[in-house]
């Protein structure tokens, strides 16, 4: 109860405080002579936002790069030791490879499933379409931890004699006559990795579907009709007419999921803790930071992640510029 | 109520190669209806927006009354503006839309109500005061935008193509409404349009602009009768003026086999040849063959009179000519008629400078 009152107070104080801050700053600026008022006012408006971004993103990013060249408590400089140590760490290397696998599989499969649903559901009756899309979209509301719990149950296996399988996957495979397997430990052909990726795909396909669906519905009807008159069959129309027109959206969805995949640790952290050769880079960060308390290494892991997103960032900024030029 | 004065006011958009308005000098009298007219992109809106304070004035000055408003923000200029798309606040009722500026000026709510009712009455909006803009027709929205301006009783009204979103019929009706309203209120008004008929019918005076420069500021009739230069001559009037060129002779201009008399002293002022402008109504169909032969391609019968469109291959003529003739004369398409100009009513321009010579 006390906590809720605290929260209510926080809302009132936080929101009220921010309002008061804006109001006071604004009032001060408005008292200044004309020129100064016009000049300073924009900074009053963006000030708090810039302060937050500076304090919580820009400053830490710079600081993290610096820490990555220091030892575990940032007491002395170690040069590239942290990076070398990571490179020589088998676990980190396998995490890099796993990440690569995630990047290759998850965005592509999410896009394909999303597009499949977007296109197929478009042809159902309105109610069915709505229901189908809501079902696929629903996992968007579920946390990675929640999703992990759901799927951990699906992947559960029991080995004791006479125990029935209560995990869906094992129930099916044993029902088909196979021996029970501990799915999340099955690292042959990266099976366990793929099972973890399935969770991510399950979560993200809805996002892909929503954006792609909007794009597909935005394809002008007359281009389809023109193609039909030109004698194209439905598959040709899809690949030659529809896909090129929605391609920009495909790229958007792909990169968004890609970035997410690069930095999500929750699923691995909760499902396997990185064991059985399932670790990913973002999870190694948490391990280094919490379990080993090695801030230097943790910082170095982050720098690796940052470097990995730089190309996407550049691409993003360029796209934004082009979009603005056309505004 | 106040005068408005631009003194070499310049607007140079950031990143542009040339200024949109290099420096405009314009004086508008108290209570006057001034129309800014010109082709698209000539800087009319820019000029108006400098007066509104929506564009920075890069150099020069703008005065409202005796006040130098060059550096003032819009809210301190005591002006009201009607925008092309009306800019009604979508989430407010008509009454709230009209009261907004008064509220900003801290007018007491009683007085606000009275003034809004009054303005609504003038504009016939009384029944719509509680509606949101979405639920109004285009013409009603236009009137709300007008109402928003007049409740303010500002020093100056600014209007940027306020009629361009109405259909042709509404436009004609509203045109006269606005002119009358302005005359009744007597508030100095600057009105931007690209439509020269609007300009001619509404303005006390009209300022014609081209490429950011003022070409001529005058009453509508003076503009029509004595255009300062070739641009104004061609821009004002519909159908447009015909421009003829020819060989300069001693007492006139020789166009094909036709001699158009032009006073000698006028011709002498020319630096490099002249261009003569003749309005369609100042051509006459010659009874004999003394004139410019044109082959009739189209006859526009208007009942009261007729416009004859024709082509000619005489050197120096524009190829197409428009002549106003008498109605029901049965000039046949394809026939050839000879036309001659009324020498008293011609406009002579310098070919190089395009300035008026007579």
């Amino acid at each position: 109860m006390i906590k809720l009152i605290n929260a209510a107070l926080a809302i009132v104080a936080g929101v009220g405080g921010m309002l008061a801050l804006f109001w006071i700053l604004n009032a001060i600026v408005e008292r200044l002579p004309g020129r100064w008022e016009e000049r300073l006012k924009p900074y009053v408006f963006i000030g708090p936002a810039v302060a937050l971004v500076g304090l919580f993103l820009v400053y830490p990013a710079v600081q993290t790069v610096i820490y990555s060249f220091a030892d575990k408590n940032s007491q002395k400089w170690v040069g590239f030791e942290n990076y070398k140590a990571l490179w020589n760490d088998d676990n980190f290397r396998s995490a890099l490879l796993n990440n690569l696998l995630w990047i290759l599989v998850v965005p592509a499969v999410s896009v394909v499933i999303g597009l499949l649903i977007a296109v197929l559901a478009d042809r159902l009756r309105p109610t069915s379409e709505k229901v189908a899309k809501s079902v696929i979209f629903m996992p968007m509301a579920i946390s990675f931890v929640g999703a992990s719990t759901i799927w951990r149950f699906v992947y559960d296996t029991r080995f004791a004699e006479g125990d029935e399988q209560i995990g869906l996957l094992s129930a099916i495979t044993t029902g088909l006559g196979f021996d029970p397997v501990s799915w999340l430990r099955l690292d042959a052909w990266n099976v366990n990795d793929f099972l973890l990726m399935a969770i991510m795909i399950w979560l993200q396909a809805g996002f892909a579907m929503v954006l792609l669906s909007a794009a597909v519905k935005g394809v002008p009807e007359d281009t389809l009709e023109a193609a039909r008159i030109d004698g194209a069959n439905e598959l040709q129309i899809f690949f030659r007419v529809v896909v090129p027109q929605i391609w920009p959206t495909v790229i958007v969805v792909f990169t968004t999921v890609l970035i997410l995949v690069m930095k999500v640790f929750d699923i691995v952290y909760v499902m396997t803790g990185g064991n059985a050769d399932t670790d990913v880079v973002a999870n190694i960060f948490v391990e280094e930071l919490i379990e080993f308390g090695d801030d230097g290494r943790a910082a170095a892991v982050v720098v690796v992640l940052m470097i990995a997103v730089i190309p996407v960032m550049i691409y993003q900024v360029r796209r934004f510029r082009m979009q603005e030029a056309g505004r | 109520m106040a005068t408005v004065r631009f003194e070499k006011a310049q607007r140079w958009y950031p990143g542009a190669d040339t200024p949109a308005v290099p420096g405009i000098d314009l004086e508008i009298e108290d209570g006057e209806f001034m129309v800014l007219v010109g082709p698209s992109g000539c800087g009319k809106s820019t000029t108006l927006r400098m007066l509104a304070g929506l564009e920075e004035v890069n150099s020069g000055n703008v005065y409202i009354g005796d006040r130098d408003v060059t550096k003032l923000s819009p809210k301190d200029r005591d002006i009201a503006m009607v925008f092309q798309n009306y800019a009604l606040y979508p989430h407010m009722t008509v009454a709230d839309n009209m009261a907004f500026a008064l509220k900003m000026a801290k007018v007491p709510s009683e007085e606000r109500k009275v003034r809004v009712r009054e303005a609504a009455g003038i504009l016939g909006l009384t029944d719509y005061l509680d509606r949101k803009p979405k639920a109004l027709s285009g013409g009603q929205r236009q009137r709300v935008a007008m109402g928003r301006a007049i409740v303010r009783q500002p020093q100056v009204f600014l209007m940027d193509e306020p009629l361009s979103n109405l259909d042709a019929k509404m436009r004609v009706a509203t045109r006269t409404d606005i002119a009358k309203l302005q005359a009744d209120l007597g508030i100095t008004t600057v009105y931007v349009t690209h439509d020269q008929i609007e300009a001619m019918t509404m303005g006390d005076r009209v300022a014609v602009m081209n490429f950011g420069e003022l070409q001529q500021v005058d009453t509508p009739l003076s503009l029509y009768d004595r255009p300062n230069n070739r641009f104004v001559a061609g821009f004002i009037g519909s159908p447009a003026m015909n421009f003829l060129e020819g060989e300069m002779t001693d007492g006139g201009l020789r166009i094909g086999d036709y001699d158009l008399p032009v006073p000698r002293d006028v011709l002498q002022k020319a630096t490099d040849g002249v261009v003569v402008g003749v309005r369609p109504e100042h051509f006459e169909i010659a009874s004999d063959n003394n004139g410019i032969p044109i082959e009739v391609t189209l006859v526009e019968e208007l009942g009261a009179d007729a416009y004859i469109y024709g082509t000619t291959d005489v050197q120096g003529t524009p190829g197409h000519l428009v002549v106003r003739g008498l109605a029901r004369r049965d000039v046949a398409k394809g026939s050839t008629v000879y036309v001659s100009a009324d020498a008293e009513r011609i406009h002579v321009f310098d070919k190089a400078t395009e300035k008026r010579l007579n």
Partner: protein
Amino acid sequence: MTQAAPTVDVDPMGGEGQKPPRAQRFTLGSVVVRATVALLCLLWLVPTIGLLVSSFRSEEAVKEDGWWTVFASPLEFSQWTLDSYDSVIFDQGMGSAFLNSIVVTVPATIIPIMIAAFAAYAFTFMRFPGRDLLFILVVGLLVVPLQVAFVPLLRLFSQYELNGTFLAVWLAHAGFGMPLAIYILRNYMASLPHEIIESAAVDGASHFRTFWSLVVPMSVPALAAYAIFQFLWVWNDLLVALLFLGAGENEVVTINLRDLIGDLGQEWHLLTAGAFISMVLPLAVFFALQRYFVRGLTAGSVKG
């Protein structure tokens, strides 16, 4: 992100009243279409149903056989029980974690929206030196991994003894959410008619006034979209909560659920009930406000 919102005003979720004669668009065998969609939906739904069903079964039943066996006799009400919920909420602390999650989420949603709305207004309607550069920075930060923030922030917070407090998470979420909030809101505001803002200026409204009386009311769809987005993000977040709040008195549902998995990994009746509690509020918000959320997504989004 930077998704050029589709020019046609379509609802990507589909639904009544907005279907042009689209049934004819393709003539692929409609049985195949329906079967495929049904199959995918089943695949998407079954794991969640398993969770839901198991959470209402008794411990013995959950451990005895698969949850799908209930469908043999679903109407036998004696098999349904709320025991697991009782145990999770009161014995395992999921109840207080739920309250904590609310305490964390609501301020962490509202505060950044307001700050971002002011900034978005300035980025859209004001001219000032450095504007474009700052905005490019915002766009760039959209994709920066949150992880960059933790090492320095943990130290900074511990200096002021903020670690483990709600204030730390509120601030952190406000900061982390800022780029996306500014980005979404600015894109929306840029689509509002500029004339309206100019008209307000001529009418004598200050920027502050224009912001509150005009821009905020007209931006409600975007504000709502971002609010839902941020709400889901904060509620579902594990990383920030793990590092700044941790386990214990102030723990939120995601942390509580993680600990349930760690400590009681095979007690499926408890795990399923706990997971469901952690999901129920976001699911409710999500289904109630799906329209806004979808609009927010299509208006352009990526989470940093």
